């Protein structure tokens, strides 16, 4: 592990200088490093302990580390592969490559150490490295960076404060040593520490009330880096949540509240509920496809949080499984968006249309991605949603179940908007000459499609990792037998579902082929109510796609506006202070008056 981290740290420098020779070498270095890391960590036995730079036993390879590292490395290898071509559009390719490698270094470090200070340092490395990539994106990305740094630092300072609180109490930074003793502490201390430590996770994984940075940052970051942000960096927050919920004896630390769920988990579940609601309904009304998926990330972060906070056999496994599903799906979707932007140069949904006939592979990637996000079999997205639903229903948590149902069905709505607006519908005249993305861009997308379907039909591999994590935390592991998945409310078999799906598909295809063949007609041969149309660009419904639904929650309160107004208040105070200390006649008068008043008052 130490050598891997060293290679990554050196790789950042090497990548920077190699990029100067040829821009494409930077992503190739990242690809080589992540494939090497994937190979090393895949084969590494769980429980290995190593030193780091002379500090003893800092690195510890747990089942949770393995799971999250593998997700990270899959995402990063696809990202690097995609970047080999895309890098030609990057604004500062050398720094971009070097900082990408540094981000990987930071996140892997976070996953590999239970030492809280080391974890904090790696965390900051990842945040700072990604922080400098974000402003290389669109016009507004510099402003977005401020959102990113402010909310990230809220999270990390909470984390740091919690860490020192724990250190002052127990005299150690090792999480697993602390977790044994914490249950006997006072209630206030337990609440404070848990909230502070999880604050970092909440901020990073875009959970309400710290969800506002996602829209700005994901929406404005460089196109491929959004894939890493949503597919991987957000998962760093999920890792922190999973780590503390698993390692701390949460169930004995806090009192029971409802159906075997303790009060602290319940607070988290409610944060998850609100995140799902906000993410879903805000995503429905976005016209920018990247911002739409950013809100989808908020909603899915809510799912993950709910699953993890349930802390039981099925729900916790579902939450963990959802991490990998969302990581793969978000990466697929953002990479396909990056391919679309690479060819058309816009992210506004209603400025595009009909790209399916020009970019079929990109379309298929997006399609499989959204099928997974919406949780439809036979993709892996369904497996985790099924687990979370089963757990919620078996506990009788129907209010939370309602939010998850709304999020799940709402996801059909928002994922369909780019599908209909960007890929289907009328092809715009300006896009007549658009070509499919280059082969190098398509390959990582195809790999992700294959993985999503493979793990949807044969989820065993992921479930082995997930149950290892559960065993590590002393939970009852999720029960599965081959492709048959069991919960306390019954079972299902992903292979049978897949076979039935193929049977249905074949029956439909046979009927289709037997009947007279349809005649191919061009896209502008349409039913137009008998009218001759001049401009078929306008015969495309993409603007305000869900206008009738958006009307229903038009005047909703916005946390982004609320935070902005706080900023304005602070600015006003700052301006006031500024006004008072400037060397102007009025300031002198003010201070004179104040001093005189003080003197008079003292003399009085």
């Amino acid at each position, binding site marked *: 592990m130490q050598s891997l981290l060293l290679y990554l740290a050196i790789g950042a420098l090497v990548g920077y200088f190699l990029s100067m020779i040829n821009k494409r070498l930077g992503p190739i270095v990242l690809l080589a490093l992540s494939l090497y890391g994937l190979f090393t960590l895949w084969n590494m036995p769980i429980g290995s302990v190593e030193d780091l730079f002379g500090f003893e036993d800092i690195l510890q390879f747990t089942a949770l580390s393995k799971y999250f590292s593998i997700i990270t490395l899959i995402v990063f290898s696809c990202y690097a592969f995609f970047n080999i071509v895309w890098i030609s559009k990057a604004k500062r390719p050398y720094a971009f490559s070097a900082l990408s490698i540094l981000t990987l270094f930071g996140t892997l470090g976070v996953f590999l150490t239970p030492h809280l200070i080391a974890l904090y340092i790696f965390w900051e490395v990842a945040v700072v490295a990604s922080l400098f990539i974000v402003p290389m994106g669109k016009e507004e990305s510099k402003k977005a960076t401020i959102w990113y740094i402010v909310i990230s630092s809220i999270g990390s300072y909470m984390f740091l404060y919690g860490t020192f609180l724990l250190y002052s109490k127990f005299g150690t930074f090792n999480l697993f040593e602390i977790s044994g003793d914490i249950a006997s502490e006072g209630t206030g201390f337990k609440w404070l520490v848990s909230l502070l430590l999880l604050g970092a996770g909440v901020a990073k994984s875009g959970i309400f009330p710290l969800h506002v940075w996602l829209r700005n940052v994901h929406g404005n970051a460089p196109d491929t880096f959004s894939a890493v942000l949503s597919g991987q960096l957000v998962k760093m927050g999920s890792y922190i949540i999973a780590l503390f919920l698993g390692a701390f004896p949460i169930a004995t630390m806090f009192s029971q509240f409802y159906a075997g769920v303790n009060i602290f988990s319940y607070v988290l579940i409610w944060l998850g509920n609100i995140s799902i609601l906000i993410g879903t309904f805000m995503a429905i009304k976005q016209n920018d496809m990247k911002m739409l998926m950013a809100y989808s990330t908020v909603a899915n972060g809510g799912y993950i949080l709910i699953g993890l906070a349930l802390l039981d056999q099925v729900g916790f496994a579902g939450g963990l499984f959802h991490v990998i599903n969302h990581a793969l799906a978000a990466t697929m979707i953002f990479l396909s968006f990056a391919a679309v932007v690479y060819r058309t140069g816009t992210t506004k949904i209603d400025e595009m249309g009909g790209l399916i006939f020009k970019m079929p592979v990109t379309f298929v990637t997006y399609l499989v991605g959204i099928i997974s996000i919406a949780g439809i079999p036979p993709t892996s997205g369904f497996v985790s949603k099924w687990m979370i639903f089963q757990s919620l229903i078996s506990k009788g948590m129907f209010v939370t179940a309602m939010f998850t149902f709304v999020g799940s069905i709402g996801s059909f709505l928002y994922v369909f908007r780019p599908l209909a607006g960007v890929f289907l519908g009328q092809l715009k005249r300006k896009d007549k000459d658009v070509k499919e993305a280059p082969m190098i861009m398509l390959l990582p997308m195809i790999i992700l499609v294959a993985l999503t379907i493979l793990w949807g039909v044969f989820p065993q591999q992921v479930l082995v990792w997930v149950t290892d994590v559960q065993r590590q935390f002393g939970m009852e592991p999720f029960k599965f037998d081959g492709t048959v998945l069991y919960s306390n409310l019954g079972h299902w078999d992903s292979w049978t579902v897949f076979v039935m799906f193929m049977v249905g598909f074949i029956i439909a295809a046979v009927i289709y082929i037997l009947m007279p063949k349809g005649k191919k007609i061009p896209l502008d*041969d349409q*039913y137009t109510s*008998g009218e*001759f*149309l*001049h401009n078929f660009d306008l015969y495309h419904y993409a603007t305000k796609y869900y206008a009738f639904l958006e009307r229903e929650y038009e005047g909703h309160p916005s946390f982004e506006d609320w935070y902005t107004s706080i900023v304005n208040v602070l600015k006003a105070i700052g301006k006031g202070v500024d006004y008072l200390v400037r060397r102007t006649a009025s300031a002198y008068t003010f201070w004179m008056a104040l001093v005189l008043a003080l003197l008079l008052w003292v003399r009085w």
Partner: protein
Amino acid sequence: MDKIEKIDERGVWEKIADQLRSRSMWMLHYCTGCGAVELPPSMTSRFDMERLGMGPMATPRQADLFLVTGYLSTKTLRRVIYTYEKMADPKYVIGFGSCTINGGIYYDSYSTINRLDQYLPVDLYIAGCMPRPEAILNAFTKLMDMIRKGEADGWKRYNENYEWYKQNQLRSLGEVVVYDEFHE
């Protein structure tokens, strides 16, 4: 003159299909003129067209039967042809009233089309100004008979003599050039 016995060229499957087509005619009524008001009574409870398996459809793609219900100006004829060409084969056309036969009372207007079958292959005309629902239903049963016997082959004629129809259409209407959103 002896009536020439027409040879039935249809295969077995086509014959069966024609039986089905005659019993399930979905219609598209292009309401150009006063004939449209005769359709609601034929659809509703008095005459109930649905018992013959017929019903109104929303778009030409779904429809089998095209009702041209009244007089045609040059402007509407363009749209009638445009709509007809969107329908899927086999498709049938019924001309309503004397307007589609000879121009009716508007025969001498500068912009009225007098004979529809110069431009589209009409399978059946209903005489009258306007035809009553009884006549309409009579026409429908007649058309069903024709379909079963394979005589309603207007769509085949249109495909075979496409050049001739196109030439007539162009002569009367000219090429349709769409200049901008509001003019053609």
